[in-house]
């Protein structure tokens, strides 16, 4: 049994990660799920939240927006619109983004096409703050 799998985290603007990983924990829509090598073939939607990637006790943490993940025994491909490593998160920017998104959302009704756009922003900003506040 392999001890690692290939992990790709891809956003439309860059290939964020392409490396071997021992385990990951990703925020699925039905709750967080962990992946170890040899996982069953799975396609899932992801919520905005924390993605942790690692080998041992101290995982690398990333904040991701909503997206998709495809898991096979040797490979995990995560497609998200935005992703950022914990170290690169600027909490003041995230807070600003969150406030702005909240303000826009208050003005809109849910059926408005703009609503989902701002909602995504809000969730991503929340995810960034949440990941940033985690102590390692």
């Amino acid at each position, binding site marked *: 049994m392999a001890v690692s799998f290939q992990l*790709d985290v*891809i*956003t*439309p*603007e*860059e*290939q964020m990660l392409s490396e071997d990983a021992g385990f990951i924990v990703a925020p*699925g*829509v*039905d709750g967080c799920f962990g992946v170890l090598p040899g996982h*069953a*073939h*799975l*396609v*899932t*939607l992801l919520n905005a939240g924390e993605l942790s990637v690692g080998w041992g006790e101290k995982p690398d943490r990333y904040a991701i927006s909503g997206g*998709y993940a*495809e*898991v*096979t*025994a*040797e490979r995990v*491909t995560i*497609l998200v*619109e935005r992703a950022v490593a914990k170290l690169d998160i600027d909490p003041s920017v995230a807070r600003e983004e969150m406030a702005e998104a909240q303000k826009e959302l208050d003005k809109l009704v849910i059926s408005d*096409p*703009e609503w989902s*756009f701002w909602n995504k*922003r809000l969730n991503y900003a929340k995810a960034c703050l949440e990941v940033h506040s985690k102590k390692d």
Partner: protein
Amino acid sequence: MPNLKSLRNRIRSVGNTRQITKAMKMVAAAKLRRSQERAQATRPYSRGMGLMIQSIASMANEDSAPPLLAAPKGKRVCIAIFTADRGLCGSFNSGVIRSVRSRVVALQNQGMDVSLVCIGTKGRDVLKRQFGDLIKRTHIGIAKDLNYEKAEREVSSKLLVEFEKGEFDVCMMVYNEFKSAISQELTWRQIIPMPVDEVKKEDDDEEGYPAGAPYYEPDEADVLNVLLPQNVTVQVFQALVESDASEHGSRMTAMDNAVRNAGDMLNKLNITYNRTRQAVITTELMEIISGSESLKG
């Protein structure tokens, strides 16, 4: 023989043109590098998305396929045309426009109802003369500060809403795909509904793909329903970045040619100028000599 003053003016103006085209070439080259990186960075995402969709779509059955995947039912076609906002980039815009023209006429002959969405002003400016009433809207300045969110918000979400409302049945896009700094390839691609042939064909290329259906969370239909609109956005975004990179590549090549032409022209003009000047001097000398000769006699 032109006179000396007008030649000097010509030389100065050609020199200025060369300066300008040289500057534009430099600017295009600098922008090209950034755009090219971005175009290449987008490809893995859209490929990953394509693979994910095909693995689901190949299992979805024909009758229950969502509208974004099912075969088109009506005869209304929307064409999204990606051109530049600015000219001076060789055949970049005209190639797209020529192709659109012939395609629109061909579609209309087949009894299709065509509408156009122009992304970039150059396409609209030319096409409105012939197909003014077909143009639904124009997006201007998208390529500036382009990012994924912007592409989604301004272009693809509008297309999707219109599709849901039933304003068209098929959406195609035409853009220049970036090959290298000196070559672009005009590409037509159907984005709504997603062509099923393409989905199946890609399936064969994939190696080592696990057999059998994966588990879906929440379930197959939900995943597909989120994935398909997203895919439209990705395709639109990719077309935008490819088109942007192609524009700069094309402009760089065009300006390089222009600089060279202006240089050749300058050489020729300088030769003519020197000859003319020499002729003038010779004539003046002859006049002086013949004058002094006649005084002697």
